């Protein structure tokens, strides 16, 4: 999970998605938060879709495994996508 740390700045994360855009989870960057995200179903290989943004831009809602999760941008940033 941590092997990709060096190249993180160039990677696309859930934060960078446009509304309605989909991506596939590649890895979770923050080991502790990662555990929480994994339990909520954000497993590497799963498809995510950015569903909506709060009126002030943060937090956002995403759709994973047919259900909607809401999370803050700094949390979304730790979910990296496959390019």
């Amino acid at each position, binding site marked *: 999970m941590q092997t990709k740390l060096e190249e993180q700045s160039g990677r696309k994360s859930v934060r960078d998605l446009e509304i309605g855009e989909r991506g596939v989870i590649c890895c979770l960057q923050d*080991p502790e938060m990662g*555990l929480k995200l*994994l*339990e909520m179903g954000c497993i590497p290989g799963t498809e995510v879709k950015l569903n*909506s943004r709060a009126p002030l831009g943060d937090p956002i809602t995403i759709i994973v495994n*047919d*259900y*909607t999760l*809401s999370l*803050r941008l700094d949390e979304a940033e730790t979910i990296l996508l496959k390019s």
Partner: protein
Amino acid sequence: MTVTTIQPEALQVERPPIENRIAKIALIGNPNSGKSSLFNQLTGLNQKVGNFPGVTVDKKTGISQINPGFKAEIIDLPGTYSLYPKSLDERVIIDLLYDRQSPHYPDLVIVTADASNLKRNLLLFTQLADMHIPAVLALNMVDVAESEGIRIDVPALQRELGVPVIPMNARKGIGIAALKIVISQQLEAGKVSFFCIPEELQPVVMAIKARFGLKNDYLALHYAHQYKNLRFLKEQDVAWLDELLQKRDFKSNTLQANETIARYTRINELLLDVVRVEKAKQEEKFSNRLDQVLTHKVFGYLIFFGLLFLIFQAIFAWASYPMDLIDEGITRLNGLIQENFSGPLVNLLTEGVIAGLGGVLVFVPQIAILFAFIAILEETGYMARITFMMDKIMRKFGLNGKSVVPLMSGVACAVPAVMSARTIENWKDRMITIFVTPLMSCSARIPVYTVLIALVVPEKYYLGIFNLQGLVLMGLYLLGFLAAIFSALLLKILLKARERSYFIMEFPVYKMPRWKNVGITIVEKSKAFVFEAGKVIVAISIILWVLASYGPGNSFERAEQKALQETREKGLTEEQAAGKVAAYQLESSYAGIIGRSMEPVIKPLGYDWKIGIALLTSFAAREVFVGTMSTIYSIGEAENVSTIKNKLMAERDANGAPFFTPARSFSLMVFYLFAMQCVSTLAIVRRETKSWTWPLAQLLYMSGLAYVMAFLTYHLFS
């Protein structure tokens, strides 16, 4: 109908036939999986709210009649996504499930799972199954899932999981009977295992099993992951585990992540033949469309503030009718008792106990109304949207999107407002919210503000519409709000987080509220307030009553003599004489003595001992200020604003100038704005935080702030 008391010793016996004892059943499941509905269905109003040591979640237990000869005690555990707790409150689950010696160790767990989210809900189930605790899966909202096109093959699921699976709809009560039949059979733990502990962990698992005499490998693995959070482990055990895991290079985070991924893989496989999705979800689409309006940049906030206004209006205006009735009822009851009986004990009963009780009951309408709204907001899923819209702003001040509701409700009354902070999961955010909520100007401050504003602020109009008195009142509210958010900011810096704050949560689809749950919430919250905070409020009311009604030696008789003598000399009416007697007696009471000894302390704020007495008695409730002032200045029965105003205006200082100058009055308003003068709030904060530290810190902080601000105000204006 059912007996709510249970003898703990009866539960520890060596598993006699299940019919003769009360079984312990734990309810566990994901948040929003219908756990509370099921709990309510099983226990009805037969619930008891207690404490788990060290955390702020309530321990909800209830007795359920499973069949005519078999009762079970149901314990409702906090909602969680896994057995690896991520918050303090979730830790009660492992404390209970991992300690076989615990008095609450369950004979059976009912795992609730939302049928339309089966994959994620099964994660927790598979962990519990690997612990080898007898379990039943309550597959909730099957009909809803079916209408969404999700078909679940229940017999196949039962085969795959190895435990009974009961399809149900807890909110409608469907499937409860079937669940009870299954529970009443003596259940064994399932035989299916869902996770294979990696070979390289075997030495660790074996060592832990040997040392603690455990039979289950997976439980041993959890000891390794969570030994720091297990309260029942001894110090030397923790040290031993520390050393073992260090030596074996046990990487908890990575291993947990691998386990979760492995479990999901296994769940995906087993669900392949069990779940069929036939069409896309309709509900989600409907929710999304509704969200385009309800979380819209403009309409979203407009609707939200409209709703807040409605709630505020309800607590403020609608609640006043039942509150007046309670008030009147208590006064009548007291009058009736006093007419028929006499003596000091009767006075203690009426003016101390019953008046104190009245002070508790009078809050019930506000609490009931606020929690009706909050329960509806939670049930419909709108609460998640409030958090979603407000989080970014509130976070800047160390608060949380959910802090908006307590803060706004605080404008009506801090007591229900503090209770409503329960919806905030994060410990630090919740404590900050509870701490600052009483700074919002509550309705009890209004009588104080109106009397004093009427006294010193002229009734002038600006631009034809802006009333100066109204503007000052608004300014006071604004000041309270600013005090609240800046205190939050201060606490954000000072307070250390006990747990990592996650915002990530399930965003529920909109649903119709379950009215039964709303009703139970109202009853439970009102009960909790009356019984838990009520004790403290009644006790303090009695103490304050004693202080104000008794004086040392024969000081009361002398006060009466003095008043009567003055009456004769000046030829006052009977009513005026009674007023004088009350005024002189209060002056010579213990409260009066305390007021006098307080004078040097409050003099810098511009107050004299008379105000000192009012400050003291205001501790029972702020609105007592007006009553006390009218007694001290012997205004008598006619307690309306204009008579009090005239009386206070006539009050002169030593030089013959008006005593209530703008400086004094504003200083007093500012003092009431900041000071923590509410026993009810202190009592409820203690209940909600489960410690005396928070209410005491609040008392010191707010009163200190009040002192400084009132001092500045007094010197600014004079």
